[in-house]
């Protein structure tokens, strides 16, 4: 990416923090994740143009 393009980009420069690697594979907010999964279990999801990552 050229500098001019980068300056216009809204994607922020993210400083990587290796200390956060200790969270890899963990779920920090498990209760909230469980609650979110339960909420979406029966939900009628909006139709979105999805391409799975």
């Amino acid at each position, binding site marked *: 990416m050229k500098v001019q393009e980068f300056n216009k980009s809204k994607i922020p420069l993210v400083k*990587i923090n290796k200390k956060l690697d200790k*969270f890899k594979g963990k779920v920090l*907010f498990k209760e909230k994740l469980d*609650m979110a*999964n339960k909420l979406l279990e029966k*939900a009628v999801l909006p139709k979105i143009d999805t391409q799975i990552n």
Partner: protein
Amino acid sequence: MKYKKYDYTADKELYFYEFTSIGRKGEIKKVVEYSKMNIEGYYNLAFGDFDIETNEINDKVVTNNGDSLKVLSTVASTLYAFTGKYPNAQIFATGSNEARTRLYRMGITNNLVEIQEDFDVYGMKTDETFEKFVVGEDYLGFLITRKK
């Protein structure tokens, strides 16, 4: 974002973000997490206080550090970083209680004009259907997707 935000750092996969809230109660570490949900392509967005001494996370505490708008703006700004790496991710967020969900709604409302430039925002209604986010409506949760 039109509101000020804190600088943050992230893990290399951009699933976890950390920043420091600075306010009347001092410096409080915050962590933002995007975690995979049961539905493929969906990620849950959650954030809360991180206790350095106990290594524990608390998403229920009311920090009351006097900087909630700045904190919410910071959390909202991580959407750009996360969806920059995972552009097809569907991001779901809900509060740990009704008051916290309203706080999320406030965060979206305050940044809505800018968020909608790049994201579609949906609100989950009590009948478990979604609609395009309407300012002032109560929702159970929020779904955010990057515009194509």
